[in-house]
């Protein structure tokens, strides 16, 4: 069977999926990036190989996305390396064909994508602020000593959510500490945080956007029922969470890979052996000009695969050779 692999390496999670020719998900894997993108991609590849072992599956195309997409693309040999906004939009419109609004909250960024008749008409991404993203929730859950998986359910127990300033994660944290020291029960504080995060998202990312149903909520944070409830309360609309909400970026990448390989009829996929290859990353500061660019070298089994990070073309030769 012909299949396509999508890899989405974000700041918090790394997701891999295998889809078939019709775009049906055959394998989905969700791992924590834990600051080790190369290792976790290799681990993911090992798990994918394991899952497809007995099924006659041939990988005909690979797509990489997420903030580590360039790195991932080199490691797995991707046919297409695309930004996560495009990947998410492609996946959402594939799985929910009549979707009009996509809310996506990931580890370190959040975005909104508006589609009309299956076509993206508008999108926005959070600017430079981390308030209202998954890692902030993670951080607060850890501080309150609540496993992140139970965070949402706890918020639902609240009867009287407290008001928390959601504009800035630093202010939000001091607000939460203040409320906690005043004696407010934890569920109320957690629910207040969910409300604040949603308010912040809608005021910043969703500012002035026309949010029409069906609304799809995806990204790792969609696992949080508290946030979902807060969205439903704030928007007055039903929020649809797709089955594969946490790996939508990877699904999009796989779909894009299918598109990309349709024309050229071959794949750059390096095979599942990449999980055992010894990848090395090293970096140095170029002293060629006052820009002091930080150049990164990626090598496999001692051989230089790719190099990037420079503002001028001086160090790009290897990469160009690889991409043609």
């Amino acid at each position, binding site marked *: 069977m012909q299949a396509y692999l999508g890899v989405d390496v974000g700041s918090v999670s790394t997701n891999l999926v295998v889809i078939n020719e019709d775009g049906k998900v055959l394998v989905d894997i969700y791992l924590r990036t834990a600051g080790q993108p190369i290792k976790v991609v290799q681990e993911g590849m090992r798990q994918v190989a394991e899952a497809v072992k007995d099924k006659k599956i041939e990988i005909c195309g690979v797509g990489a996305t997420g903030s580590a997409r360039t790195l991932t693309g080199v490691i797995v040999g991707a046919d297409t390396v695309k*930004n996560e*906004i*495009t990947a998410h939009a492609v996946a959402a419109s594939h799985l929910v064909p009549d979707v009009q609004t996509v809310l996506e909250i990931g580890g370190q960024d959040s975005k909104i994508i508006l589609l009309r008749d299956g076509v*993206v008409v*508008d999108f926005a991404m959070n600017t*430079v602020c981390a308030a209202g993203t998954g890692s902030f929730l993670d951080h607060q859950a850890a501080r309150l000593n609540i496993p992140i998986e139970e965070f949402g359910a706890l918020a639902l127990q609240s009867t009287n959510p407290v008001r928390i300033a959601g504009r800035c994660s630093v202010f939000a944290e001091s607000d939460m500490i203040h409320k906690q020291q005043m004696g407010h029960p934890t569920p109320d504080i957690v629910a207040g945080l969910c409300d604040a995060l949603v308010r912040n998202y809608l005021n910043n990312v969703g500012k002035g956007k026309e949010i029409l149903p069906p609304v799809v909520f995806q990204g790792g944070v969609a696992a949080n029922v508290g946030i979902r409830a807060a969205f439903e309360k704030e928007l007055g609309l039903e929020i649809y969470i797709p089955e594969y909400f946490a790996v939508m970026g990877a699904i999009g990448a796989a779909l894009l890979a299918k598109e990309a390989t349709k024309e050229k009829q071959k794949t750059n996929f390096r095979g599942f052996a990449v999980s055992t290859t010894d990848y090395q990353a090293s970096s140095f500061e170029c002293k060629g000009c*006052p*820009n002091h660019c930080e150049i990164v070298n990626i090598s496999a089994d001692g051989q230089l695969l790719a190099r990037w990070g420079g*503002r001028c073309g001086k160090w790009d030769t290897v990469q160009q050779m690889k991409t043609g």
Partner: protein
Amino acid sequence: MRVGIPRTLSYFTFYPLWKPFFETLGAEVIVSPESNKELLDDGVRNTVTDACVPIKLFHGHVAALIDKVDILFMPRLVSLDGKSTLCPKFLGLPDMVKYSIAGLPEIIENRLDLKKGKMELYRFLYGIGRRFTANRLKIMHAIYRAKYNFANYRKLLFKGLTPVEAFACLEGGQEPSVQLIDGALKLAVVGYPYNLYDNFISIGLLTKLRRYGVQVVTPEMVPDKEMKRLSKKLRKNLFWYYSNQVVWAAIYYLEDKNLDGIIHLTAFGCGPDSMTNKIIELECKAKKVPFITVSIDEHTGEAGVETRVEAFVDLIKRKKGMV
């Protein structure tokens, strides 16, 4: 005498005016190097904390000129069209720099305020000329040559060249042909010239877009006549010169049916842009033209800009069925 001109802020608007002016007066013009990380770091160290990144960068450019010039050209630009003024930071620029950086050479900080009348530009240039020569004719000659060169420069911009390309062209380089690729995306990139055309601070935005095969148009390419027409179109104009230029340019390009989108490049914390950005956003919305804001700051990480711009271009292409 060596005159130092920082390669930022009004440089992109007026360099072809200043350069022949000073050279005809017998001075040697020295421009600070192209923006780079060291310059910016230097600027950040030397600037009041609340300033925006272009102002910080300006301080870096000034610092880079200190030992290389006898006199520093840092005019106080107040009004360039007789109506609006420049951003307050331009108005206070000579003072801000003087009290932030030690060991500066002599400074030319003459005030240019065209609200005082049409002859003000001559008075401004004449006043500067007197510092170099007592010969009246020589100054008049310098003014003539400056204006001639400046007019040629503007013509190149209207042909679709960016200021940096036009500078090279005026220095004797070949005029790059602005070729239109059939079916290419046409995007208007609007923002202040010192952000747009400084490849370092814009993180190579224009270069990137051209690499994606996009036809890029900018405010500097809009003819004066059109700007004047559009200045009467808004119910109320803004107070600031460059902001008005940006808004009018956006509206001008929105009249073009072939325009595929607008990118607004803004520096983090820019006061005037809080208005500018919103006006452009609303205009785009009314015309149903895709719009995105790219904000820049001291960061050198390209990822944010790269992701947004790539997605913007991708999604427009998908929408048009080009993929």
